[in-house]
């Protein structure tokens, strides 16, 4: 196998990074929606916490999570504009707790693999 060039290496890294973030993004969205938000503010909160996401990814994800019953949404008027507000449902809160446990388990497992206990 030939050694990868810097550009190829960067492309592979970006690809893997995206894969890694895809799962974590769901966790971040569910966690952020413990407090009611509308799409734009949610995006800003995620960006401020280092989980920047484009709207083309976020809105379809919100719809999917709502269809799965993890979020609830309602249209309300605010600042003279109709906005759709999202928040975590009861099922969503239960799933979020389990997912956080799972995520911490994964983190611990990776830590163990990287730094085996002697």
């Amino acid at each position, binding site marked *: 196998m030939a050694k990868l060039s810097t550009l190829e290496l960067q492309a592979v890294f970006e690809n893997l990074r995206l894969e890694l973030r895809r799962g974590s993004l769901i966790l971040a969205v569910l966690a952020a929606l413990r407090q009611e938000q509308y*799409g734009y503010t949610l995006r800003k909160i995620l960006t401020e916490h280092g989980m920047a996401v484009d709207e083309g990814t976020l809105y*379809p994800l919100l719809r999917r999570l709502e269809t799965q019953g993890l979020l609830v949404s309602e249209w309300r008027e605010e600042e003279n*504009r109709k906005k759709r507000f999202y928040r975590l449902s009861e099922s969503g809160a239960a799933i979020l707790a389990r997912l956080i446990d799972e995520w911490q388990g994964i983190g611990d497992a990776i830590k163990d693999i990287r730094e085996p206990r002697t």
Partner: protein
Amino acid sequence: MNLVERYIEAVKFWLPAHLKDDVAAELADDIRSEIDEAEREKGRHLTEDEIAAILKARGRPMLVASRYLPKRTLIGPELYPIYILVLKIVAVCSLIPLAIMFATTFDFGTYQFSVQSVGNVWNQFIYSLVTAFAIVTLIFALIEHQGMNPASLDKWNPKTLRPVRDPSRIRRSASIGEIAANMVLIAIFAAGYLSRTVYDFKGGHITVCPEWIPYWQVIIAMAVAEVALAATNLFKPFWSWQRITARVAIDLGKIAAFAWLLQTNIVREVVAPDAWRPPTDMLLSLSNAAPRYVPQIAIVVVAIICVTAIWRIFHLRRARMPVSA
């Protein structure tokens, strides 16, 4: 806001009816929120170019709309490997009639291919191939979308998996079969059945051409060589350059001898009772027609021999990769 409205309309165009208004409203709010914030930061209204830049950064309307749609594939990952395998089989099977059709376009008077015939054959081949591919794709797409996954996909047993086979290995059963078949042929020859030109049967006889006897002598010589080769293969069951060459030489020798025999109008006379006329007449007419098709048959068989030899050589060159559990 004219640009934003046009953008939203363009996104709506690609969305299904039940999503159009909902997605458009949410998207419009998101874009307007972004513009409002930018205007607050700058302390002025955004120019048309600045709004265009915001929309451009969001991507083409079709792309934006596609993200709201469920991911659909014509043929999913479960069926895809079978689909590709079937396409390969169809492609290979299409090559056989192509080879035969090309052989029939050869004009043995001028020893040239007829350009027009070759063109027709090629067009027919492409048409058949595309049609076959389209039919296979359609069938697999139907299976995928109707959820009619073949039961074998779910029910399988690791114990029934095909054993790992080295393609350069010669099966012992094949070598034993080859030896047995050739020994039977040699026995028939030794009993004298292939050393005469008149064969009697109840109520009649068939007379074959005089070339019949030397033909079988050549074939028996080849059979002896084939027995020797098969015996070697039995004890050293891997193809080598020498054995591939010997195999090709024997096969080409046999086809050359057979082509030579076919050209001589093998069956010369059939004397048979009336009840046997239909099959004996057919035998005679086949024998008379055979010389016309000798070149075509020879081209196809030689092509098969060459392809088989190339396949064996190809696998001979590949390193055997041991797989251990």
